[in-house]
């Protein structure tokens, strides 16, 4: 029995070490952001504690944050709508080759985001010479690219739920006199709503945190927050980046927690 106790201790220390490894960077960033003395490099553990860098966050970060939030939010809504339509088509549709369709909607996940980014940039330049409409480094340009990478998530989550749903529900609604439109809004939609929100959340998170795609589709004057942070880290470190990063991390965790509370997200991606 003694070996059992030792074994359990080893198991728990592995668990603890893995979690410490995963969480420590976030804690370090948050702690270092409170140090008021450092100007050239981040200092951990902090020597002095204050909110100096939070008050000095330059306007470019706020601007980038609003670009990120707007683009990611609009894109996740569009991805949600497209995802529901595509999932209904794949699961309920009577078209042949639904398996192929499903594989097709997974394609964006198989392509590295850097490649997707270059493809969109080149596509936007071509579009501009053809139609004269500029899409690179604009809000619509970012949104289109985010919809491209976000839709697979909404299709995936909604289709997974629709498959487990009995078509008899629809028949019952029809017998009770619902039109197809009413059936969708009164029966199907309320059932798929949690998985739709989960899929939209993934789409949002991917878009909001993305660097490799956005780095091509932004310009120095029009950029997203992760790209702005990325450039700061690569070229000119500034302690305010610690404050911004902490805010982003806190925001992500709070919104995740709130949504989990609201819809009772299944924590495992599906």
């Amino acid at each position, binding site marked *: 029995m003694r070996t059992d106790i030792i074994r359990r201790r080893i198991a728990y220390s*592995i668990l603890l070490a893995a979690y410490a490894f995963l969480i420590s*960077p976030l804690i370090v960033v948050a702690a270092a952001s409170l140090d008021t003395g450092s100007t050239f490099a981040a200092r951990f553990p902090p020597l002095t504690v204050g909110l100096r860098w939070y008050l000095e966050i330059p306007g470019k970060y706020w601007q980038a944050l609003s670009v990120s939030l707007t683009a990611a939010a609009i894109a996740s809504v569009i991805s949600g709508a497209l995802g529901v339509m595509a999932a209904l088509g794949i699961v309920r549709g009577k078209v042949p080759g639904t398996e192929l369709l499903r594989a097709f909607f997974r394609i964006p996940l198989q392509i590295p*985001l850097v490649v997707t980014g270059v493809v969109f940039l080149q596509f936007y330049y071509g579009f501009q010479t053809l139609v004269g409409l500029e899409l690179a480094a604009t809000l619509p340009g970012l949104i289109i690219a985010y919809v491209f990478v976000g839709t697979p998530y909404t299709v995936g989550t909604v289709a997974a739920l629709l498959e487990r749903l009995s078509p008899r529900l629809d028949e019952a609604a029809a017998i009770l006199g619902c039109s197809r439109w009413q059936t969708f809004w009164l029966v199907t939609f309320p059932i798929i709503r949690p998985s739709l929100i989960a899929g939209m959340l993934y789409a949002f998170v991917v878009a909001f945190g993305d660097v490799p795609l956005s780095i091509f589709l932004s310009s120095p004057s029009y950029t997203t927050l992760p790209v702005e942070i*990325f450039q700061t880290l690569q070229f000119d470190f500034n302690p305010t980046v610690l404050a911004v*990063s902490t805010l982003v*991390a806190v925001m992500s965790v709070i919104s995740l927690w709130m949504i989990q509370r609201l819809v009772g997200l299944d924590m495992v991606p599906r």
Partner: protein
Amino acid sequence: MPVVASFILFALPQYFFIASSFHENLGYGRIGEAWTLANYHRLFTDRFYIGALVKTVGLSAASTIVCLIIGFPVAYMLARMGTRSKAALSGLLVAAMFVTPVVKDLGLIIILSQSGIVNQTLELLGIITGPIQWLGAEIGVLIGLVHYMLPLIVLLLATVIATVPRSLEDAAHAHGASRARVYYGVIVPIVRPGIIAAALMVFNLAMGAFTTPALLGGGRVLTFAILIQRSVILDVDYPFAASLSSVLLVTVFLLNVLAGFLMVRQAQVRRGRPKRTAPPTSLDPAVPAGATAAVGT
């Protein structure tokens, strides 16, 4: 109709991009008319690019293996936990996954820097005499990639392991199997397809990872994703970026096909042996599309 429309939207830009890899770069983003293999010739004759490809595959494979070694015990414990602590711990994993990679990389940079806590601790313990250069080296990128992929692989493996009924383990124990035998004789064979699926997913993710190698590699560890970005941003050479991209895509695809082939072969070999029962391949976790790394690179 919507299918056709989305197909055009999805596929056409990809086609033009890949097609451009067969044309000459004329500078300033202009592309020559004539078809040529010059870009591929340059890529395959320059040892620098071959080396970068080998390095990308090596780093991805190494980080996948490390992820499996750390991730499997963690996933096992997670799968065998009570509902409440399981929910809390997997919630933490999802939270770690959802924070944008740039922020996590910033934290890792602080931790692994010359005077960071890792170097300080190691020096204090007398393990090293001078600080180790983690950043700007393969080891730093490896740590970053493991950090980036670990939450995902734990979640994936935990779902698979949860499908193995506990009674199977108890039965093996009752028949006198040691703990290690239960692991490698009972659990691993059953979940092997799931492990391979999860490992492939994480491997593919690492092959295309950009942010982490860029930040932790400090411009000195050049993976394929970084080379693609550089050839567009610095050299404005779309055709070459396109050929790099298609080589990366084809490599990933071939390695996946190879893995699938080996998996089928192994299953056949196993089935051929009458004494042992074939692993139930139906236990494939049906790893869903939505799970591919909820956080892009």
